[in-house]
């Protein structure tokens, strides 16, 4: 086994284990911390897939910003574990549907993978900032500008949603 295989196996097992812990841990704080682990494993896989820029972005945006935001909200609201009073039948139904989705994806991938050619060699500068920037600010310039409008709208929306309007809400009544 080469180094790439060993790294892939380590990161893949790490990602799946932490992802399972995210959806099974009772406390939200634990879930968020395991999600950081998943994000780091995925960033490692991105490096293996010749996407170093996206790996850096993954760590900064997901592990750095999004998870910190989630943790902030969890701690600010002092969320504790809530009783998971899911009826057993619904839990089984959920497992069944998730399993079905997984099975469908598995079948599609296994059937499709026989027609796929082998991995090509990585071209020079593939996935680096320069190459991605040229595409982003060339062909996708309009989409990039639209993204900035989206982020502005999300920002204004978030501020409007959490703003306390005089005397409303649980504690102001």
């Amino acid at each position, binding site marked *: 086994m080469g180094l790439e295989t060993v790294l892939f196996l380590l990161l893949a097992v790490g990602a799946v284990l932490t992802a399972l812990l995210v*959806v099974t841990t009772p406390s939200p704080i634990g879930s968020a911390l395991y999600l950081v682990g998943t994000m780091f494993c995925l960033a490692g896989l991105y490096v293996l897939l010749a996407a170093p820029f996206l790996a850096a972005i993954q760590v900064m945006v997901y592990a750095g910003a999004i998870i910190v935001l989630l943790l902030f909200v969890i701690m600010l609201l002092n969320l504790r574990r809530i009783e998971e009073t899911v009826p057993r039948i619904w839990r089984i139904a959920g497992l069944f549907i998730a399993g079905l989705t997984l099975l469908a994806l598995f079948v599609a991938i296994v059937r499709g993978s026989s027609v796929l050619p082998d991995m090509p060699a990585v071209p020079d500068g593939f996935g680096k900032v320069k190459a991605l920037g040229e595409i982003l600010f060339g062909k996708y310039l309009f989409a990039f500008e639209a993204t900035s409008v989206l982020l502005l709208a999300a920002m204004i929306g978030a501020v409007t949603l959490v703003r306390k309007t005089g005397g409303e809400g649980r504690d102001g009544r």
Partner: protein
Amino acid sequence: MAVELSHYLLLSAVLFGIGTLGVLTRKNLIIILMSVELMLNAVNLTFISLARHAADQEAQVIVFFVLCVAAAEVAVGLAILISIWRKRGTMNVDALSALRG
């Protein structure tokens, strides 16, 4: 054994399935939000492995946009979550049935 495209695709399928499981079986709103993030990341992994496979960087640019949308989604989602907490004092999706969903 060499790592092939199908291994990466299978891994992202597994992650997507785990995310689906979380959305369907958990009752805590914030954990459901995290499961959705997990599903988004599984899709990102698919994009990046296919970008590597086709030696085409445009798919990596798409992942960039997915990241932006995920950031916006988390910001708005958490804002909704906070206002629900203020009004209702609960995070349990069973208690939040005003829309009769």
